[in-house]
């Protein structure tokens, strides 16, 4: 087999490892899917809200919750990578003639699959709550694509941060920081309803762009907010993907 074929085979082996973990812990998998649904219900009904939103709040809120769920995926990635690094098994992987990056690829595929499932669960509940999609199938898939692209950027930020932090204690700090970053966005409310400086922060938050673009695509209300939702994640990837890969390769220093 060629090097590329080995790289593919190794990546598949590592992905299977993650899926085997799922099979071992079905409860955890379900809980991870229930959590964003719970948040959706909480913000949709318990807290109410939708300050400054015209029309149905669920149509505004749901794409925002989808984006928020993608952002929160950062935590999951970080925790998983940190746990792996702090177990002896990473030493065995690194002392084997496998493609080293396969460890990261396995992580990526599993996390992206998990996020896709979370999107499905949220959208299913959304439809039940009266969420309406008027943009047509192409725009729908485009929105899902943008959400997953954003998740992919979060994934590599998560891998990099986990490699830098190394220890589970530092992961906790990042976990707490993800919340304000997630909520300082237009996921739940329009920036116009906020104090000026906060509105500015919110408008600059890459997650807001993804949420806005997804909203527009789901509703079929134009594509002029689309580009930032493409450019931001790509920019983040351009920075954090090489950083993460480099950091992983330097574990031997």
């Amino acid at each position: 087999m060629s090097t590329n074929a080995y790289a593919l085979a190794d990546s598949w082996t590592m992905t299977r490892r993650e899926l085997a973990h799922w099979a071992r812990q079905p409860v955890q998998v379900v809980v991870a899917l229930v959590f964003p649904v719970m948040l959706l219900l909480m913000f949709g009904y318990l807290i109410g809200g939708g300050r400054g939103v015209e029309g149905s709040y669920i149509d505004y809120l749901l794409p925002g919750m989808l984006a928020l769920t993608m952002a929160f995926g950062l935590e999951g990635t970080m925790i998983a990578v940190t746990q792996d690094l702090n177990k002896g098994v990473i030493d065995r992987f690194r002392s084997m003639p496998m493609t080293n990056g396969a460890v990261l690829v396995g992580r990526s595929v599993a996390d992206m699959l998990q996020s896709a499932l979370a999107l499905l669960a949220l959208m299913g509940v959304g439809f039940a709550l009266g969420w309406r999609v008027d943009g047509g199938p192409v725009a729908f898939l485009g929105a899902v694509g943008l959400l997953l692209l954003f998740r992919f950027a979060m994934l590599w930020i998560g891998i990099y941060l986990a490699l830098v932090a190394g220890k589970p204690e530092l992961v906790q700090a990042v976990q707490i920081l993800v919340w304000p970053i997630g909520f300082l966005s237009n996921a739940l409310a329009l920036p116009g309803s906020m104090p000026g400086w906060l509105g500015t922060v919110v408008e600059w938050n890459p997650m807001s762009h993804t949420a806005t673009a997804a909203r527009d695509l789901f509703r079929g209300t134009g594509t002029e907010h689309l580009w930032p939702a493409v450019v931001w994640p790509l920019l983040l990837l351009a920075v954090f993907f090489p950083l993460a890969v480099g950091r992983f390769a330097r574990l031997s220093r």
Partner: protein
Amino acid sequence: MADTAIIVEGARKKYGGKAGKNALDGLDLTVAAGTVHGVLGPNGAGKTTLVRILSTLLRADSGRVQVAGHDVVRQAYEVRLRIGLLGQHAALDEELDGRQNLEMFGRLHHLGGRRAGVRASELLERFGLADTGRKPVKQYSGGMRRRLDLAASLIGNRHGTDPQVLFLDEPTTGLDPRGRAEVWSAVRSLVGGGTTVLLTTQYLEEADQLADRISVVDAGRVTADGTADELKALTGGDRIDVVLRDAGQLGAAVALLPLPKDAVSVDTDRRLLSARVTDRMAALSGVVQALEAAGIEAEDVALRRPTLDEVFLHLTGDDNRVKEPA
């Protein structure tokens, strides 16, 4: 150099920047193929750092390191194809069962799915783990985990046989005597298959039992190297022990025995007189004749080799460290 499995020349490694501690301080080591080499040293001597460098997990700051004929930095892939590693801590996926672990490692060693399965069955059988079923590794006992870890380190090479070079980093630390015996017999069975084994240990008995040659490591360098017998000879050769019936006669015995007086030690409680000797037989007959002539009754007269404990303490003791240039 087909008959040399491991070459380490002047390996240095410092942790934590310039002010850091020298984990390895110009370490040299050569291990012949098909032998068991013991690396013996106290905690913090650099044993684990050495194993991590040899198994491509860590890069030395300087020096040349070759394993199975390949440079561990420039030809890491070639090295990884040929080695197995048993670290101090279990390198297993705790969530998966034993078979899942071994099959995964087999695939990553590029055995292919079918052969990985065959090899996993073979190793589970060999280490008495065939009936562990679907139980995840986190529910294993310490001994079982160690055996599975050892099995995983033997996944080996593309031919589905044992690896060419195996590193065992304190393989029996934390195991009960039974677990230790199991690991020992596994190591002995490997050598029959031609595998070169480098094992680190703090236990002299372990090195004495398993290793063909031993390197004593202290403060990041090798302070002595040789077979167990050669190392024992380092402390000044054989000793003669004389146990008298009457402790009161010890002084008289020291005065009249044909032994160098500065090399004699006396233990009154045990009625024991002990001395280093150079010519074993001359010393033995000389002592027996002198005791008989003086009418001193002896309970026991025996020649013995120094123990490895004596060697170890001699080599790693503080008196020895003073002699080393800083």
